[in-house]
Every structure is written in C-alpha cells, then in structure tokens.
C-alpha cells in the first residue's frame, strides 16, 4: 500500500507551487487550506500504514487545529484589507 504516498506527494506539490507563484493573498490562503488538509490526510495514511495509533491521533488533531488557525488568519486578513 506504500504506493499511495507517491501520488499524494505529487498532488501536494501543486498547492505548494501555487502558494509560491500567486501574489494574491486569498489565493495563497486557498493553497494553505489545501496543504493543511492534504498533509493531515497523509499523516493519517502513514499512521494506518505503520499501525501506529499515536500518529493517527496527531493527524486528527492537526486536521482541526490547522483549520482553526486558518479561520483566525482569514478574519485578521479581512480586517487588514478593509
């Protein structure tokens, strides 16, 4: 089942590239949202691959925490842009 990580990694490169290339802040935020979800799913896959519960819990927590920080940042950016 190791083959999953390869394509996942390649797809992960797309938003990373986008975040570097696009100068608009909201497009960068989209890339951030995408990266944060994708990395946490990858962590979950790794935890299943290794049968390691601990990493799985971290994956779930990263999933929710990453999104929470994104929402805070989005609100701050909205205030700044006004």
């Amino acid at each position, binding site marked *: 089942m190791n083959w999953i990580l390869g394509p996942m990694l390649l797809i992960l490169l797309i*938003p990373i590239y986008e975040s570097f290339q696009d100068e608009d802040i909201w497009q960068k935020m989209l890339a*951030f949202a995408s990266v944060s979800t994708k*990395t946490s799913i990858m962590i979950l896959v790794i935890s299943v691959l290794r049968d*390691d519960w601990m990493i799985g819990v*971290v994956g779930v927590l990263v999933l929710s925490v990453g999104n929470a920080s994104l929402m805070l940042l989005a609100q701050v950016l909205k205030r700044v842009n006004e």
Partner: protein
Amino acid sequence: MTNVMTDWDLAAITALLPIAAVMTILQKNPYHALVVRGILGAIAALVYALLGAADVALTEALVGTMLAITLYAVAVRSSLVLKLGIIAPVNLPEIELDNGASNGQQDAQQNSNPEDLVHPVSKSLEEIFNLIHSFEDPQELKPLLEDLRVFCDRHSLRLELHPVPDRQALDHAMETKEVHGVALVNGDSSAHPYSVTVRVERLYELMQTELNPAISTLSTTTIKPPPAEKPLVSDASSR
C-alpha cells in the same frame, strides 16, 4: 502493510521541508510570509509524523502553526502602521463611536423579537467598525494622501489618520509620540502644496526617495524624551 517505507518516499517528503523554508524567507510582504509560514508548519508536522515523532508533530501544529501565526498576525497588524496627524474638522470618530455602541445596545434591548437578540454584541461591534471606517479623507489633502497610500502599499504599511482640531494639538501629538508624522497644507505662496514631517529616521529615508517631490516637502525631527520620565529612572535605580 508493514512499516517498510521506501527510502525514496522518505527522502522526497523530507525534501519538502527545506523547500517550504526557502519559500518562506523569499516572501517580501509580511502577510504573505505568514501564510507561507503556515504551509511550512503543516509540512513540518507531516515530516515529524513521518519520522515517528508524534509529540513533536503535535507541538508544531499547535504552537508552531496556530499560536505563532495568530500572534504574528496580530503583531504585524499592530506594528506595521503609519500614524499620520492631520488638521481636520472636529468630527472625531471616537465621539460617534460611543453613540453607536450605546445605540446598538438600546436597539437590542428594545427589540423583544428573539431573532434580533441573537447577536446583540456582534451587531453593535459591526456598527462601531463601520463608524470608524466612515471617516473620509479631507478634500484638501487628497493628492498627498494618494501619494502616501501608494508608498504605504509598497511597504505593506497601514495608513492611519489622526485628525486633530488645530496646530497646537498636532504638535502635542508629535511630542507625545502619538503619531509618527504630521502633514500640513502650505499656503498658496509656497512652491509645494504640502509639507510632511516624520519623527522616525527610517521612514524619512524611505520617503525621501519614494514620495513625489512635486507634491510635498519632507523634513524630520527628533523628539526629546519629556522630562516627566525622570522620576521613573531614579525609581528604577534605587531598587
């Protein structure tokens, strides 16, 4: 299904970390850097989890990504600001702000309709926010402010106007370091329509090369610390 993971996968995922780090330091705008820092945090958490350090990954996600970004966002927003004192009619937003807040609360209390009572606090906050932003640029300062806005956008600064009633209050604001600079309208006899004075050395250097010299004259002053601070110093040394 076992824990055998090819070296290639490991190397490729780990290589993302330096790439993201380089991307972060290449950003010029601090807000863009914050977003890319978030991406770096997410990737770092992935790499740490991949290498088996669940605790480090969790710390990176909680502290490195969430706390750091939130704190930096607030810090950048509150520090990257150019406060400019100007003379404008006394229509201070703060005065209206109080009215707006109390009006909002009264509205919320008078309405017994449960739907309107849902967010009384956020409603009045919204009103306050609109009032602050309803302060418009004074007509006679328009060309100068446009020039300054271009300058501020280039350095991702926020331009904040501090309207005061007269010249005396303007000088006072400068002395108490309430503002970073002041802008004045020159008389018709002068060659330049406006004059700008800043007290921050670095701002002066940047403005000297980037502001349109046809619009304004630029000068800098140093503010001496007010004598009232002396007792504090002796107080500290006696401890």
